[in-house]
């Protein structure tokens, strides 16, 4: 145990910055051991053993109307408790998206509807005493469909004859460009300066289109919910979710159940990455339990996770970049067409982040235009996924920048160093673009992007390899890079809160709404509290994400936990510390100003009382009271984390196959609260980004059914695909963040697609603009270049 002889305040006075004993130090997660050792912790581990098993009948058609549905035989099957169709559920539209209210996503979903809009869409809901019987019942439901012409090409969706949402009762909560009769879920445009004029005046202009594919989250724990009525006659849900409070609100509003009658608990979650930032199954579990009074549960199968939860929004990104011959970037024009699939969750916001969290990287341009449309198709619904648009936008812009450099004959590192955003600077885009609404102006109080690039060059041995080195036979080694930014919560919208309770013996309970989905928020929030309270992590017992017992938090998304929830914890801890000092002054019968605290003992003049004794005194002996402190926080800005990513590949020019030898990440996330866990966030993101860049592809049949619906035909990276990851953090301090921290949850995922595309170009001269970057595409590109060479020589 550490004994620190001076307070954080006096240390700050001496050294100009807080000395940190616990924050910025690695500490094992508070729950990893218990979980590996097998303690029941996840939603299904905690389900009522008598829970009815829920199974969903799913549409075999990409687009159809239910002409008739007969559930008589299913209902009669012994062991079936209830069968629900669109005729048995409330006809109130909602959005499944877990976002702040009013949501920037259209309310275009009904619990069950007479239209089905993708293969896998919900048709009916069965609850039975066993899985076997539930599945049998599904097969007994007779449905007659009127099959409609599906829209399976997002470039043909706008004003298509087939209208995917023709129904009444759907709406936008505020203007987002919602035009369902034209298959438009959202649209947006913003201008800084006059981009067309500036482009005309540029020496060099490039114009390119990029395609990013849908990506599946593929978290290891499939979606799972269980519900019960407790002894206070309240509906209690255990659900694997990123947004328990939003779940509670959406259930209440849609099912018309008073909010006070619902409790939502998030236990351990086996991964989310955005795929659980929405309702998946909660409606059915809630309805079944409310209607039958019995506990129920729904566990998605792996193919249901692929087919019927979410994917990332696939996009086409049209980019125009204009620069002068000296390499000054003067104009960016970016148009995006985004495919939100059957329902519009996260449609506007993901598409906007593709601009708002990429374009400010090049803040010194004279003009920027960002515009686009999000269209409905009869694909699996797209939703939130780590990066949240930034990864798609980054692929396009950072690839385009390298293409511009090739045309300018300028080194891509020098170009970026000349044009990228630096500490103390700003971009007009921050003020203009928020998440669905207007943004918030901010200066980059902390931005170490220049260091990140410099250090990354060293770690990747860039200068020894760029652009490529021929090895023997047909193999070549090459490097590529990209820079990226993200955010830290949504200012003026995301609120987090924390309550700290003092116990006898001198330890604390820390109750937070913040949602640990495996990223370690419980641990780092304990570290923040322990740092401020000058105690140790084992004396801060965390309980999180229970809508009854913990204060509010918007949830684990938008990289908000470290920054927003962390600041809330810091506020609560400061309040608690002041309360303790007052109680100590009271106990020692001195004035407050004389009391000093080192985490263990309160000293005043020649008296002292140990923290432990004070706590016991407050519980049992004198001036008895329960000390609790609640702190909240809403951000007034969203200070971006930054990173530079450098990839080294070895590529076989004869076959197009390649190996990723090393990925270097240099990250500025302010103070990493727990360097090991922060590294885990970066590296986990890098590998998911590599998956999107290289291996993962959501593919459909010509009739719209998902072909990539299992791990055998959807290939996430395995341990053998990852040879070396080199991760470092820049020395950086964000004043507005808790102990100087910014968030770090998403930044890791953004750079791999562009870095890989740039490396492949450096290796072969082949520019791949459609993800994923497969060996076949590289091989075909090489063949095309050879043909061009031959025909050029012939001339």
């Amino acid at each position, binding site marked *: 145990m550490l004994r620190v002889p001076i307070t954080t305040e006096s240390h700050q006075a001496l050294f100009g910055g807080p000395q940190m004993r616990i924050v910025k130090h*690695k500490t*094992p*997660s508070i*729950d*990893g*051991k218990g*979980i*590996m*050792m*097998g*303690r*029941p*912790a*996840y939603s*299904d*581990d905690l389900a009522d053993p008598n829970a009815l098993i829920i199974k969903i009948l799913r549409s075999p058609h990409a687009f159809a109307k239910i002409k008739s549905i007969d559930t008589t035989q299913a209902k009669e099957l012994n062991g079936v408790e209830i069968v629900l169709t669109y005729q048995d559920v409330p006809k109130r539209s909602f959005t499944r998206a877990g976002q702040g209210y009013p949501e920037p996503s259209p309310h275009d979903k009904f619990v069950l509807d007479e239209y089905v809009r993708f293969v896998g869409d919900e048709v009916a809901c069965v609850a039975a005493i066993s899985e076997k019987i539930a599945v049998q019942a599904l097969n007994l439901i007779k449905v007659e469909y009127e099959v409609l012409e599906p829209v399976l090409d997002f470039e043909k969706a706008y004003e298509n004859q087939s209208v995917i949402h023709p129904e009444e009762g759907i709406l936008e909560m505020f203007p987002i460009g919602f035009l369902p009769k034209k298959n438009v879920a959202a649209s947006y445009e913003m201008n800084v300066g006059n981009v067309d004029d500036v482009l005309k005046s540029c020496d060099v202009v490039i114009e390119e289109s990029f395609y990013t594919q849908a990506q599946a*989250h*593929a*978290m*290891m*724990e*499939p979606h799972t919910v269980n519900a019960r009525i407790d002894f206070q006659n309240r509906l209690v849900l255990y659900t694997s979710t990123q947004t328990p409070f939003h779940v509670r609100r959406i259930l209440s509003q849609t099912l018309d159940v008073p909010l006070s009658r619902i409790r939502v608990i998030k236990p*351990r*979650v*086996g*991964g989310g*990455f955005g795929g659980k930032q929405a309702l998946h199954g909660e409606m059915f579990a809630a309805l079944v339990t409310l209607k039958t009074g019995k506990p129920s549960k729904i*566990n998605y*199968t*792996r193919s249901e996770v692929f087919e019927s939860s979410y994917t990332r929004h696939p996009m086409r990104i049209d980019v125009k970049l204009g620069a002068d011959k000296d390499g000054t970037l003067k104009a960016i024009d970016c148009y995006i067409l985004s495919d939100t699939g059957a329902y519009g969750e996260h449609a506007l916001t993901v598409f906007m982040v593709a601009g708002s969290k990429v374009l400010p990287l090049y803040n010194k341009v004279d003009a920027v235009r960002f515009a686009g449309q999000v269209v409905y198709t009869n694909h699996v619904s797209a939703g939130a996924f780590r990066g949240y648009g930034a990864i798609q936008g980054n692929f396009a812009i950072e690839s385009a920048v390298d293409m511009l450099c090739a045309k300018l004959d300028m080194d891509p590192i020098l170009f970026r160093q000349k044009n990228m955003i630096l500490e103390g600077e700003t971009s007009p885009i921050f003020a203009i673009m928020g998440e669905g609404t207007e943004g918030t102006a901010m200066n980059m109080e902390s931005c170490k992007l220049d260091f990140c690039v410099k250090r990354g060059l060293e770690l990747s041995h860039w200068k020894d390899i760029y652009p490529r080195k021929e090895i023997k036979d047909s193999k070549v080694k090459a490097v590529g890079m990209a820079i990226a930014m993200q955010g830290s919560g949504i200012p003026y919208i995301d609120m987090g809160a924390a309550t700290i309770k003092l116990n006898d013996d001198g330890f604390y309970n820390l109750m937070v709404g913040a949602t640990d*989905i*495996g*990223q*370690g928020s419980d641990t780092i929030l304990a570290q923040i509290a322990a740092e401020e309270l000058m105690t140790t992590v084992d004396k801060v017992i965390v309980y999180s994400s229970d809508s009854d017992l913990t204060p509010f938090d918007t949830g684990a998304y938008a990289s908000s936990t470290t920054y927003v929830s962390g600041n809330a914890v810091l506020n609560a801890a400061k309040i608690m510390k002041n309360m303790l000092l007052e109680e100590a002054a009271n106990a020692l019968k001195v004035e407050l100003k004389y009391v000093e605290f080192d985490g263990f003992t309160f000293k005043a003049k020649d008296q002292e009382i140990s923290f432990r004794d004070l706590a016991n005194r407050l519980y049992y002996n004198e001036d008895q009271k329960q000390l609790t402190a609640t702190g909240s926080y809403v951000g007034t800005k969203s200070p971006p984390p930054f990173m530079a990513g450098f990839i080294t590949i070895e590529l076989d020019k004869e076959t197009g196959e390649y190996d990723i030898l090393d990925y270097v990440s240099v990250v500025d996330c302010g103070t990493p609260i*727990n360097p*090991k*866990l922060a*590294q*885990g966030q970066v*590296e*986990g*993101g*890098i*590998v*998911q980004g590599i998956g999107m860049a290289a291996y993962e592809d959501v593919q459909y049949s010509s009739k719209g059914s998902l072909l990539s619906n*299992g*791990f*055998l035909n959807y290939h*996430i*990276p*395995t*341990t*053998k695909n*990852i040879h*070396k*990851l080199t991760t470092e953090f820049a020395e950086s301090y964000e004043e507005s963040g808790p102990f100087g921290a910014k968030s770090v949850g998403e930044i890791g995922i953004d750079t791999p697609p562009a870095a890989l595309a740039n490396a492949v170009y450096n290796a072969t001269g082949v520019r791949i603009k459609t993800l994923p970057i497969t060996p076949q595409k590289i091989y075909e590109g090489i063949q095309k270049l050879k043909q061009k060479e031959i025909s050029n020589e012939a001339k």
Partner: protein
Amino acid sequence: MKVAFILNGRNREFEVSPEEYLLETLRSHHITSVKNGCNESTCGVCTVLLDGKPVLSCSVLTARIEGQEVTTVEGIQKEVEHISDYFGDEGADQCGFCNSGLALTIHALKKEIKDPSEEDIKNYIVGNLCRCSGYQSQLKAIKRYLEDHK
């Protein structure tokens, strides 16, 4: 039908249907450490040890294992605690869903291969998918664990 096998060192007898898989038998009897990730032989989170060998419990019919020995992390707590120390030290434990299955695979690896190289380790654990960690921290933890527990 009845099947009797040894579960974590104790003789147990279960009533199962012929098409019941070991994953379902274990979870329905509160062995919650064994997870259902895909139920179709592809992800590894359901790994248990059968006669000391790592197998996918979602792909083993319970009816077939009469008289055999099944081990889950509940049965080798001390060993798993040691492994978890290394994972905690490297920050390799994120959502944890793959960890119990992986711990059993590591335990079997230690017994099966003396002095495994990095490639040996990767080949052995490749079937235990992880979506959170990026694998690097897991590998570091495993290497250090095996080195210290030779």
